[in-house]
């Protein structure tokens, strides 16, 4: 659960929200504001009309003992017309706000998503996934409330306050001052109670976070609780946290709940005070206040306090929404992956003289198109899969280097394996090749080109990755395989599945290749998911493959079958393999043994065994002559 930080500058955030909202809806928003004002005025006319009705029509008629109702009828018709305008305006602004609100939200979501897709991997490492999700759900939702409710209501209430205040001050100045004083009292109590309520809401949020975390941990380990019969203890611990949450929720809501009656009754008292003071003024003929004027003033007084309460409540909601808005903008302002690459990957065909020429159609031959600005020429380099690390240093944080002076070279078609304990830096190295992260020092060259010069998209297109954590997407099995190459035919996808040895289990699924996977392929076993992600990489058909523990959840027998397919897949491609099973890495051309971010041994299997170092020790379980 994230902490609710105080918003630095609410007004700045608010103006950004409004700007964001109005940029596409300038005209609509203008219409909305005009309509809100018109509707509010119509409403006020309605309130004041009552007094006109009594003073100008009913009383004279009553005094005359009956009379002409046609004047009244005419006045009522006039009123009806004004009301009608108010109703139409109300509908118009409500209806337009639907489009403005929802349209803004759609744009907001789309912008957030598009921006999120551009963020570097680092962002996802440093921000909890739950927090990112919460931006889309909770924070966007608070903005929805802000846009569709708080903003129109605040405008509405402001118009009312201004109109009523004008009415009051023109009627009588001293009474207006009295009313204002009472509003001051009201605002004061409100800020006092609101502060208390806010404090407890903060505490409630914190307690909710604690309970949330506790549930997450305990329910995640529920099976362990079961086998250890630890249910009682876990209930006890939960009860304690739960009760703390109850108390803070109770307090927070209590203070929020009592705000309304307090305000309403301060309003009532204000009414009485004005009646008494006004009565004294009018009866003693101090100033110009007439009895009719006093009655009118009292009505205005009633309509004065209500919108003020509303504004203060809305302001509260707006300030709270600003915290959400700030998080939305924080995501939207997060720095995107920089890509200064200019070398592109293009389809090519080989000319008889051995040079390459760019073509449109898929030839199976790829080339790096390297424009040289200085000379204004373009050179083509054949994509082969030659990868060189030259003294590479890297750290996830500038000050904490996790890879030190890594040197390696993979010639096209070689199989390079990485072994070492958890945290030795195996996965990190592979994540540098495709530029998930940028290195601090040294150079990585791909077919002789510094990878910083290659467009990231093209670089990644040329690399196939099967990751340690398999992720599948909602959609059919076929869609998931085709994710590797969107224009692959069904036949190609099935061929890839066969290569990955996934075909047999897919056929046994209820709808075969059309079986819909949901929730990250939750209905498949870990091993089956790995087979699918291998098929996905196979269909992409990239010149360089990175397999990060790609077969770790597949049993040894199935793996040996997959291995045959993989060997076929890897044939002629440069492959980087991370694995803890020897069967997977034994036939590698070069095995790198990593320890604490350094390559401590390198060579093929036979060489490393004869060296009797770390590799030998890990492999045989015996301590070699190198010792440890």
């Amino acid at each position, binding site marked *: 659960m994230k902490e609710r930080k105080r918003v630095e500058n609410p007004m700045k955030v608010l103006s950004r929200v409004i700007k964001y909202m109005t940029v596409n809806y300038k005209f609509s928003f203008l219409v909305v504001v005009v309509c809100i004002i018109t509707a509010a005025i119509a409403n006020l006319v*309605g309130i004041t009309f009552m007094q006109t009705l009594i003073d100008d029509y009913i009383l004279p008629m009553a005094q005359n003992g009956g009379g002409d109702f046609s004047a009244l009828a005419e006045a009522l018709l006039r009123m009806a017309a004004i009301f009608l305008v108010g109703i139409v305006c109300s509908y118009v602004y409500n209806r337009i706000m639907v489009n403005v609100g929802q349209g803004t939200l759609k744009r907001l979501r789309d912008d957030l998503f598009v921006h999120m897709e551009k963020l570097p991997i680092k962002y996802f490492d440093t921000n909890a996934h739950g927090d990112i999700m919460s931006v889309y759900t909770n924070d966007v939702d608070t903005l929805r409330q802000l846009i569709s409710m708080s903003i129109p209501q605040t405008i509405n209430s402001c118009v009312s306050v201004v109109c009523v205040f004008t009415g009051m001050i023109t009627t009588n100045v001293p009474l207006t001052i009295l009313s204002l004083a009472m509003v001051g009292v009201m605002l004061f109590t409100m800020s006092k109670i609101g502060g208390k309520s806010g404090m407890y809401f903060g505490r409630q949020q914190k307690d909710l976070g604690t309970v949330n975390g506790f*549930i997450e941990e305990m329910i995640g380990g529920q099976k362990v609780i079961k*086998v250890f019969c630890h249910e009682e203890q876990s209930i006890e611990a939960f009860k304690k946290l739960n009760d703390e949450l109850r108390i803070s929720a109770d307090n927070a809501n209590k203070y929020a709940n009592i705000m309304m009656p307090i305000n309403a009754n301060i309003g009532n008292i204000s009414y009485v005070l004005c009646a008494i003071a006004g009565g004294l003024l009018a009866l003693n003929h101090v100033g110009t206040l007439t009895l009719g004027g006093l009655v009118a003033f009292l009505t205005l007084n009633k309509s004065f306090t209500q919108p003020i309460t509303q504004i203060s409540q809305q302001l509260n909601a707006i300030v709270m929404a600003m915290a959400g808005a700030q998080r939305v903008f924080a995501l939207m302002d997060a720095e995107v992956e920089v890509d200064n690459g200019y070398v592109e990957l293009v389809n090519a065909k080989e000319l008889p003289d051995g040079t390459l020429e760019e073509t449109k159609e898929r030839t199976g031959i790829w080339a790096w198109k390297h424009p040289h600005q200085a000379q204004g020429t373009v050179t083509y380099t054949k994509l082969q899969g030659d990868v060189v690390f030259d003294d590479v240093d890297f750290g996830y944080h500038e000050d904490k280097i996790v890879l030190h002076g890594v040197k390696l070279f993979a010639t096209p078609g070689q199989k390079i394996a990485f072994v070492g304990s958890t945290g030795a830096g195996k996965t990190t190295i592979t994540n540098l090749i495709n530029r998930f992260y940028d290195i601090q020092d040294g150079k990585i060259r791909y077919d002789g080109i510094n990878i910083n010069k290659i467009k990231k998209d093209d670089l990644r297109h040329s690399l196939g990755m099967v990751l340690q954590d398999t992720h599948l997407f909602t959609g059919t099995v076929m869609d998931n395989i085709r994710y590797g190459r969107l224009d692959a035919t069904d036949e190609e996808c099935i061929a890839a599945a066969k290569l990955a040895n996934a075909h047999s289990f897919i056929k046994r699924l209820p709808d075969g290749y059309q079986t819909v996977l949901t929730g990250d392929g939750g209905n498949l076993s870990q091993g089956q998911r790995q087979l699918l992600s291998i098929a996905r990489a196979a269909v992409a058909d990239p010149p360089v493959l990175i397999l990060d523990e790609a077969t770790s959840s597949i049993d040894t027998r199935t793996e040996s079958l997959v291995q045959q397919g993989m060997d076929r897949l890897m044939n002629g491609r440069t492959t980087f393999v991370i694995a*803890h099973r020897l069967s997977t890495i034994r036939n590698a051309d070069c095995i790198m043994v990593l320890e604490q971010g350094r390559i401590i041994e390198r060579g093929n299997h036979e060489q490393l065994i004869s060296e009797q170092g770390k590799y030998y020790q890990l492999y045989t379980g015996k301590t070699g002559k190198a010792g440890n």
Partner: protein
Amino acid sequence: MIKTILKQVRQYKKASLLSPLFAALEVVMEVLIPYITAQIIDQGIEGGDINKVYFYGICMVVMAMFSLTFGVLAGKYAANASSGLACNLRESMYENIQRFSFANIDKYSTAGLITRMTTDVTNIQNAYQMIIRIAVRAPFMLVSSMIMCFFIQHRLSMVFVVAIFFLAMILMLIVQMAMKVFDKVFKKYDGLNASVQENVSAIRVVKAYVREDHENEKFGKASGELYDLSVKAESIVAFNNPVMMLTIYGCIIALSWFGAHFVVNGEMTTGELTSMFSYIMSILMSLMMLSMIFVMLTMSAASAKRITEVLTEEPSLTNGANPLKTVANGDIDFNHVSFSYREGSGEETLKDIDLHIKSGETIGIIGGTGCGKSSFANLVSRLYDVQKGSVFVGGRDVRDYDMEVLRNQVAVVLQKNVLFSGTILENLRWGKEDASEEECMEACRQACADEFITRFPKQYDTYIEQGGNNVSGGQKQRLCIARALLKNPKILILDDSTSAVDTATDAKIRKTFKETIPGITKLIIAQRISSVQDADRILVLENGEVNGFDTHENLLKTNAIYQEIYEVQTKGGGDFDEQAG
């Protein structure tokens, strides 16, 4: 469903009743105040009598004070009752989840249960608070305002009856039409969130395949559909306000017209006319509130349903009558056992398993992914019930034992094991609450965990973070084994529990087991031949059936599958896991 939820009010019944009671009293005051206002105007100001103004003014202040007190009390009790209900709901759900069997747990996702206990409960809490404050208040306001109106002028009140009828009809229509579309909106919204979730967790795949544009397009389409539906739903709701205004203004005009006639004819005073105007506002406001409550109820119905599901979920395993409290020994017998996770689906995970294990034996279990190894082990401590046949432990059917007794005697180290946040010592004591530090250390020695624990600066007081993220996979597995050993069980089941431990340490653990706990029956599930080859007997499972059950030597001679696994693994070398410690 509502009954199940309301049952959880329990000790907050008093608050739940007091809150509407005070709300009702507050309404009485609020209804009387406009009447007093009318008196101030009629008798005081227009009558030119300042004493009357004082008198009614004081009346009004007193009433305002009462109204304030009642309002505050209603609010206080409402907060008390609703947060209490929320607390009880969470507690009951949590307690019931603790009673869940493995089969029950499999049914729900962790994220799903968390949402139910947090977001859904908060929805119910808000709805309940609103209902006990307003559900009584609004109808009460409606009725008392009506009474006041009839009291003042019954013929004029007919205007309201027509208006209320009109408004109620329209509001119902709007709510009903909107809810239908909103249902679809919520579904789309869930789908959209799921797609974000998917992209957040699979961002590496998206980036590795350069599928950002593809995902943007997918998302844009989904958010476009959400937009269309939301606009459709909210356009219906947009009628709400204008209809409301239409009714109010209609009433004002009608009231003015007829009211004028009554006043002129002397059947009514102007003050009474003014208070009629206030009452009509109250009546229409309470109708509006009722429609809001209706919407809120419908919206929280989904949450209530999800909570009820958890509350009413019956644990699929229960103790029999007079359960056995002791386990005689570590014998295990499978008598023609068939087992399926989904009963009646025809997919049997285990088929007709019939085998017998003597107390103190070490049994290796090996086989491909999905062959039923873990399922086999899970039946011994009755984490699931068999469909056919029976499982005996210590000579008695597992269903005859008290589950807690059985599980304390059959220690399982699960494949997907978890450490909890707390010190190493605290984690170890899950196995035995009152274990002394020496006992814990001894268990760690047996599990070869002491060698790395002693290298930590704080040793046994090292704090394990949530999910055990600050220890390596192999270290975690050894801590989990030590934790299970502390139970001092008669049967120990290791479900692939040394997969991340390097070969040498794995062998060392097995050697210590042989020396220190020879009397315990040990079931060792593994992928590696080396982990099981020195067991007394090895069970080879294939597609849920016993393919072979014999010693390593015999299996090598007779069992084709075993031979194949052996071949693959020795040819390729053993397993090559993380380095020890």
